[in-house]
């Protein structure tokens, strides 16, 4: 099963007050794929994601979902197609896991309609997929960081949207939980055909898990495409201002970026100058 919702940004300019963060950006999200947005701190990648998910109205240009401006679409209708998980969301004190995941059903419920068996099924499937079913009765406050993130993803899954946008879903997680979360999102993409767009900090995890990378620099798209075409030494230098060496990851045959700092590299001298 694949979905063919088209999310497109045209000549997008974004900013807060007079500070412009993104300027004249064009972007097309490939349906049914995993797209990772990468870039340096404060390059505007989270701002871009906020705008794609209608949290931030553009100063110029537009974000179109199937040809319609996301900011003009009825909020509930949009929420049944496009889900969103912000960076470090807050859970109200004392909320139980099943309750939080159930909140993902909000856009499917009317003003006074009761909880339906569809809702039960969707919540159960979401708990199941994220392996959080055994946590269902626990308060979210008591969970570890990795468990909590899985619960939030379960909430987004219960929403049953064809598009899912995530802002740094692996922040504050240790490496095993990062892999776990990205595996889970890949499962979701492979089995449901959910289109996934996420901001990721870790270039190597992005290259490994994404079908497509979008590198943001200078307020616009520096390069985009398959990881092997985007993750290059030139790109890392231009976007992050860092010298690096790219090798092929023997475990995934995806590109792997090795940063070349002043220290810790074979042949670097005591004062941190590289001898070549």
């Amino acid at each position, binding site marked *: 099963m694949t979905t063919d919702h088209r999310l497109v940004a045209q000549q997008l300019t974004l900013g807060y007050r007079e500070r412009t963060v993104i300027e004249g950006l064009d972007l097309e999200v490939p349906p049914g794929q995993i797209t990772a947005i990468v870039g340096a701190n404060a390059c505007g990648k989270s701002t871009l994601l906020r705008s794609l998910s209608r949290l931030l109205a553009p100063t110029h240009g537009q974000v179109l979902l199937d040809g319609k401006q996301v900011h003009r679409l009825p909020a509930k209708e949009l929420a049944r197609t496009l889900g969103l998980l*912000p960076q470090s969301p807050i859970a*109200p004190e004392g909320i139980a896991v099943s309750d939080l995941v159930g909140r993902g059903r*909000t856009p499917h419920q009317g003003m006074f309609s009761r*909880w339906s068996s569809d809702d039960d*099924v969707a919540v159960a499937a979401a708990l199941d997929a994220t392996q959080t079913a055994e946590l269902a009765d626990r308060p979210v406050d008591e969970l570890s960081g990795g468990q909590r993130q899985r619960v939030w993803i379960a909430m987004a899954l219960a929403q049953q949207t064809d598009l899912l946008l995530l802002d740094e879903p692996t922040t504050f997680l240790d490496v095993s939980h990062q892999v776990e979360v990205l595996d889970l999102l890949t499962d979701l993409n492979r089995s449901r055909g959910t289109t996934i767009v996420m901001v990721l900090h870790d270039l190597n995890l992005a290259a490994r898990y994404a079908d497509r990378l979008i590198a943001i620099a200078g307020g616009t798209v520096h390069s985009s495409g398959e990881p092997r075409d985007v993750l290059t030494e030139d790109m890392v230098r231009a976007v992050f201002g860092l010298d690096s060496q790219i090798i092929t990851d023997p475990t995934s045959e995806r590109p792997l970026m090795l940063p070349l700092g002043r220290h810790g590299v074979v042949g670097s001298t005591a004062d941190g100058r590289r001898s070549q």
Partner: protein
Amino acid sequence: MTISTTSSTGTTGSTSGSTRPAGADSLRSSRRSRVVWLLVVVGVLACVAVSSLVLGSRQVGWGDIVAGVTGHDTTIAEAAVAKRVPRTVLAMVVGAALGLAGAAMQGVTRNPLADPGILGVNMGASLAVVTGIAWFGLSGAQSFTWVAITGAAVTAVFVYAVASMGRGGPTPLKLALAGTATTAAFSSFITAVVLPRGDIADSVRSWQIGGVGGATFDRILPVVPFLVVGLLVSVVSARGLNSLALGDDVAAGLGERVAIARGSAALGAVVLCGAATALAGPIGFVGLVLPHVCRLLVGIDHRWLLPFSALTGACLLTVADVVGRVVARPGELDVGIITAIIGAPFFIYIVRRQKVRAL
């Protein structure tokens, strides 16, 4: 790992087909316990209402009570009971309004310290009414209510704006500080307005501390439509408050129009505060205490929390009124003083317990 069910049409996969969906049981059991608590709270409210008719600075017998309630007031005892009927109704109505408004305010601001008294909203309503009485010859319950609601709304916006200034936006403590400072300032203004006016000082004073003693049905009835509107707006906002509790971004992601959800819940609360203040003066702490108690009883779903806060608010204010009548026989303590005695330690407890994180 596989995802067993995918479509929203309700096909069940291998895992959820054979067993009951996870989480469904707990949802069902919590619903049962909520219904039990509902019966308990309604029962308590009934007892409280009866005790409010029975107890007072004058001791009466059961015969007097029956007679008083059914409209006879030939003896002093019967008349005393007859006077307690509107007073009980007023305490229940005002308490319900304040409890509900407090729960809604805590939801809107995601602030565990939010309360119509602490955020200065009641005092704003009060200042508006006192100014109206002193300078514009305001009289009559209905015009009191309009003016009080306007004062409450202006104050709510003002306090929220002051607390939003600076870094970090309207944090719980900044909101509480802005509200408390506003309350202190408005309270001084009220004194300044009333002090030179010996002609109105008495009527304003009893009303201003928060009193339900002078209740008559003539005063209550004109305010009822306002209370009903505030109640309806608040209850309709409950689902929006549930989404807002997850943060504005998640709420928007769930298809909530955040500004509208917040605005409508705030409007409902402000109308309730204004109406309650118009009836009984600025009463604090009812809206602070009960939402916390009710969260322990029925959880954080606002569709249950708001009605429960209203019911328990009615209980608390009626009890406070009864206590005020009994402890200072043959005189009476104003109900606002009793709620402050109960509420102030509770406020300190909340601040200490959770280091005031956002809800």
